[in-house]
């Protein structure tokens, strides 16, 4: 059993999907119950990964290997290290909470909705556990298709535009990335005579710098669009704003991490010389800092609550890429933790918007005001999410950004100084948002009778709040977990 644990985690949502298809679409209650049960089971079966993971071991654990397409050397090869473990857990947790949050939000075509979400879940887990580039690429592309439909069918007013823009933009990046994958594959086959997509083996390649550069930049296009890094971020505000709440949550919390994870797992280890070339590092850092400051400034002027949260992602992900290209232990570890943090805090922020949207069907900031008096519990949850996102000490965001900034400081003081502007901006746009939405008098009559959080909604928020405090107060297990894999990456550079 234990040897196939990771496959179980990976394919459980897909198996659940197969059963879901047999449930009649009219029976929405059963559809919802079943889908949520599958997501919960998905989370539960992923728990043993944490408890049995050996954090002192280097290399991958729970490895499963099977021959898949011998003609081209592709294998079914999955396994996790400390970094992927965190992302797998983030995916299973967020997946379940996002599904739970859709209980009363989705009425139309509920069966299709949950079916697509289950497919998406398998694809996302697949991205984080694949150790074979061909397998990875399959999941990497597969993610797009369910997400396209989720945005396009259940999204907001401009859903069709947002859906196709998201699809084409991110697809253009990932097809170019395929060329990088094929270049690595071809180089390896010429040098060693055997075809393989196995990442560990591809690392033994010695390539001329120019080829390595080509690989790095094709990967960069693929991952930078996913993150998204400035100037490839323009799909994000549309997609995140138009997607249904659960779609935005999964997009922000998990899908964006495919890009940063890609940098950590593929770009740095597979093109180490290209990614440490000074001008490349400078470019990456400058783009990250622009994203941090630009994302913050744009968030400041948003009139739409959801769009504001979307732009804040650009800024927060800027910290993550900055940490990666600080190229030292603090930067990398901080980056991974900050990615998890962003998953928690931005996920919460989108869920909070979703709660309001479900009651009022608007995401315009001016349609709200003074909600704190009407919905006191909601106000507390929002405040915690906000402080978590704005990096208040004792909450998770502080740990992540502090570590990244200290990593950046080690690399170059100016980086750290510029990036810290982003922390101030974050506090500004988030607090101002809170003031306009929650504080003061209730401006609109229809807002006076809004119900506070229901039990189900509490169930969605509580785990995330607990997680945020856990990382904020006692982050040591996370740093312990990351020590070995980060060391492995640094050894390659």
């Amino acid at each position, binding site marked *: 059993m234990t040897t196939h644990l990771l496959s179980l985690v990976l394919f459980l949502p897909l198996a659940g999907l197969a059963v879901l298809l047999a449930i009649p679409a009219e029976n929405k209650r059963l559809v919802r119950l079943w889908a949520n049960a599958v997501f919960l089971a998905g989370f539960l079966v992923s728990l043993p990964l944490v408890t049995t993971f050996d954090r002192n071991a280097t290399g991958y654990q729970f490895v499963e290997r099977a021959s*898949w*397409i011998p003609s081209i050397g592709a294998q079914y090869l999955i396994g996790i290290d400390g970094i992927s473990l965190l992302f797998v857990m983030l995916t299973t947790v967020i997946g379940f909470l996002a599904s739970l949050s859709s209980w009363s939000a989705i009425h139309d075509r509920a069966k299709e909705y949950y079916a697509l979400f289950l497919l998406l879940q398998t694809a996302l887990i697949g991205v984080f556990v694949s150790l074979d580039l061909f397998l990875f690429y399959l999941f990497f592309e*597969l993610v797009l298709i369910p997400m396209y*439909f989720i945005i*396009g069918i259940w999204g907001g007013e401009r859903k*069709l535009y947002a859906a196709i823009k998201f*699809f*084409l933009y991110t697809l253009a990046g990932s*097809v170019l990335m*395929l060329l990088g994958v094929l270049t690595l594959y071809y180089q390896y086959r010429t040098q060693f005579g055997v075809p393989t997509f196995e990442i560990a083996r591809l690392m033994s390649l010695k390539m001329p710098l120019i080829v390595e550069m080509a690989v790095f930049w094709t990967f960069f296009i693929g991952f930078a669009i996913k993150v998204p890094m400035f100037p490839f971020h323009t799909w994000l505000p549309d997609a995140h704003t138009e997607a249904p709440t659960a779609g935005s949550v999964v997009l922000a919390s998990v899908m964006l991490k495919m890009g940063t994870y890609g940098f950590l797992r593929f770009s740095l280890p597979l093109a180490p010389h290209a990614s440490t070339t000074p001008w490349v590092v400078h470019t990456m850092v400058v783009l990250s800092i622009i994203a941090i400051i630009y994302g913050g400034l744009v968030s400041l002027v948003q009139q739409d609550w959801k769009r504001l949260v979307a732009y804040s992602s650009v800024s927060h992900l800027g910290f993550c890429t900055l940490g990666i290209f600080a190229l030292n232990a603090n930067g990398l570890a901080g980056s991974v933790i900050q990615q998890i943090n962003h998953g928690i805090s931005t996920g919460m922020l989108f869920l909070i918007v979703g709660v309001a949207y479900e009651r009022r069907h608007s995401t315009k900031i001016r349609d709200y005001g003074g909600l704190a008096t009407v919905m006191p519990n909601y106000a507390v949850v929002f405040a915690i999410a906000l402080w978590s996102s704005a990096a208040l000490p004792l909450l998770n965001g502080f740990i992540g950004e502090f570590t990244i900034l200290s990593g950046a400081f080690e690399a170059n003081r100016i980086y750290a100084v510029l990036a810290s502007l982003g922390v101030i901006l974050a506090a500004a746009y988030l607090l101002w948002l809170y003031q306009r939405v929650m504080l003061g008098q209730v401006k609109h009559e229809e807002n006076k009778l809004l119900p506070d959080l229901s039990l189900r909604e509490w169930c969605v928020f509580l785990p995330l709040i607990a997680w945020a405090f856990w990382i904020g107060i006692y982050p040591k297990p996370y740093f312990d977990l990351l020590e070995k894999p980060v060391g492995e990456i640094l050894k390659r550079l």
Partner: protein
Amino acid sequence: MSYYTASDNLALLPALVLAVFGCAILLIEFFVKNKKTFVLSLSLAGLAGTAWALLLQTQAVGSGADKLTAFQGALSIDGFALFFNWIFLLSSAVVILISYRFLEIEDEHHAEYYGLILLAQSGMYFLAAGTELVTIFVGLELMAICFYVLVGFLRRERRSNEAAMKYFLLGVFSSAILAYGFSLLFGIASSTRFADITQAIQTRSLSDPIVLLALGATTAGVLFKISAVPFHMWAPDAYEGAPTPVTAYLSVGSKAASFALLLRLFLEPLASLRHAWQPMLIAVAVLSMTAGNLAALTQTNLKRLIAYSSISHAGYMLLGLVAGNDTGIQGIAVYIVVYTLTNLGALLVIAALRRKDPGSVREDDLSDISGLASRNPAYAALMVIFLISLAGLPPTAGFIGKYYIFLALIETGHPILAVIATLYVALAVYYYFRIAKAMYMGKQERPVFIASSLGQRIALGITGAATLLIGIYPEPVLLFAGITLLR
């Protein structure tokens, strides 16, 4: 020297079976009236016979180390020929399965329809197996003439007639050019056999104007048949006007056969002229992808959209030949398998939109498929799988086809071409997903009904399952496509 031996018999057997059954079906209407199911069974029996003949040949060729040659080198049954003939058989079978209901609805159920399909496949046989100019030309014309009739089979519909006329005129014109090219090749080698032509061209200077003229005329003729730019004008009209099952047959059977011819010509007699045809094919491939993809963006007729997309697919396949290494050639073979299955599937769904009752869908317009997902979720879901595969995204078969083409381009040092080809994938998703958008997010303008028959469901099940399975586990298809390298 005897002109016809027992071994020739085996080499000819599949074409013979097809021709006998084809002619029998043409004649049978004189004797048995209104026996539609009988004719249908007879044509399926013909295909079963062909499958048997192909199996015999596969056994005789064995692992592919040796090959059957017949008629003093006019036919050569090798891995390449067998591979393509299995593809032809698959497309004919699927087309016949979906035609019955369609012809009923159109009220044009005549036995000769099935006869023509079998005879066309008999012509295709020679395109894949022929290694002699006259044999090939006769095979090509046999196929083409059957198609001229089939495209215009809806005699009472103006579009069908118009399509047939356009296709016929342009087709005859291109055949004439091809014949001119062939005559020049004959002039160069004073033989029509590929082996002799190969030798004769190798002894000639590489810039000999006659050789180049022969190459140019031959290439133009063949490019017309695969509907590559700038010889693609006929395709949208013919695809749109033809009865949808014929569109399917035209887009996969005829295209695969023409690619077989193209590959044979360029890899055998014309191989030594690579320096001359490679730049030409690069231009044609890039133009085909560009024109096909850009024109498809704005199409609202589903069949025209498929037509333009198939022009761009021709461009992708040509890139495999541009690369020209084993990966490229095997890539074309894989591409043809997946393209055949996927395109058949997509046109099958479009064919199922036709109904007999008045006021039903007759235009195959994008709005006709609008809202399909709410009424026929299974058809809509299958269509999405076909569309993803046509676009070339994992986890469908289409990705495996594209994968080989891209890999071949990288191996042979064509990074720029690879970048162009990949970016067009993203562009193509836009128009393929317009169909998905209409099905899932479009308002239903009028009730869409599906006219499904048992044959249709079987065909749809086969193509849909294969499209998905090949995408997830392509190994058997890769091994199967590998036999094309045995020439």
